[in-house]
């Protein structure tokens, strides 16, 4: 019994079916609680006013946006090395979720930046890298959509994901070199430092991050199940036609 057993499509369908409802319930509960808490029951920041409330959606969505790509990189690698179909289908399932999170992060960042920095958009390294990341998501999804043969599509998108990751990192450092930005560094994970997020904002933020992670997992599992079903339906249809 190894960990790879869970990648067997049939087994995957088996264990995800009972897990999914729980995941959904937890995700919705966390996000609703965190957003209600953050929106109604946290004080305004003395400098930023009520815009500080945007943090409860901006930070989690940005984290998911980056880590979804990271997950796609790992699952693509697993596909290339071990040829588990579920793995690459999970990467395919995660791409639209990641793209949507990127859009949320960019939008909330823009409406936060407008009153705080005085501009909707600045060509700051962090912002620029997110825009580039969004383009990568678009390219990845477009390549999946364009290729008819399933295995060819899986191989080519995996290669694109690997190469894209290298260039995404490169773009990030290029952007830093190019323009020192307005965006501050991460202010979430430095407990005890004076410039980190204060306690009142910290707890709902953590809850919101947990909720977004759970939502991401639930979405990816559900979408992977969809892909597996579609794959099986196509395979059965093809067999029926050839018989």
């Amino acid at each position, binding site marked *: 019994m190894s960990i790879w057993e869970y990648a067997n499509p049939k087994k995957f369908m088996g264990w995800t079916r009972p897990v999914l409802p729980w995941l959904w319930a937890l995700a919705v509960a966390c996000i609703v609680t965190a957003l209600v808490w953050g929106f109604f029951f946290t004080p305004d920041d003395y400098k930023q006013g009520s815009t500080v409330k*945007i943090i409860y959606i901006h930070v989690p969505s940005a984290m998911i946006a980056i880590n979804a790509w990271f997950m796609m990189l790992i699952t693509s690698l697993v596909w290339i090395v071990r040829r588990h179909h579920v793995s690459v289908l999970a990467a395919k399932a995660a791409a*639209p979720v990641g793209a949507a999170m990127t859009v949320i992060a960019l939008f*909330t960042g823009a409406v936060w930046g407008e009153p705080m920095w005085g501009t909707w958009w600045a060509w700051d390294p962090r912002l620029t890298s997110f825009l580039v990341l969004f383009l990568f998501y678009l390219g990845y999804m477009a390549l999946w959509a364009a290729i008819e043969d399933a295995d060819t599509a899986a191989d080519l998108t995996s290669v694109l994901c690997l190469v894209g990751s290298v260039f995404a990192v490169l773009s990030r450092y290029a952007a830093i070199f190019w323009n020192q930005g307005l965006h501050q560094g991460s202010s979430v994970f430095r407990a005890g430092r004076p410039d980190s997020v204060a306690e009142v904002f910290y707890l709902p933020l953590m809850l919101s991050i947990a909720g977004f992670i759970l939502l991401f997992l639930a979405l990816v599992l559900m979408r992977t199940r*969809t892909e597996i079903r579609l794959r099986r339906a196509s395979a*059965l249809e093809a067999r029926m036609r050839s018989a």
Partner: protein
Amino acid sequence: MPQLGKYAPEVLSAYAVCIAVLVVLVAASWWRARQSAARLERVEKETGRG
């Protein structure tokens, strides 16, 4: 309703867009999941497997 002060449009639009995007994403995923399940069931019935 909390007092949002002069930044109310920014905060509200951020929340609205976030929730709208998430709802669309979940709804689309759920819709596709149902469709795929229906299609698979139909195909399995036709081929006599499943």
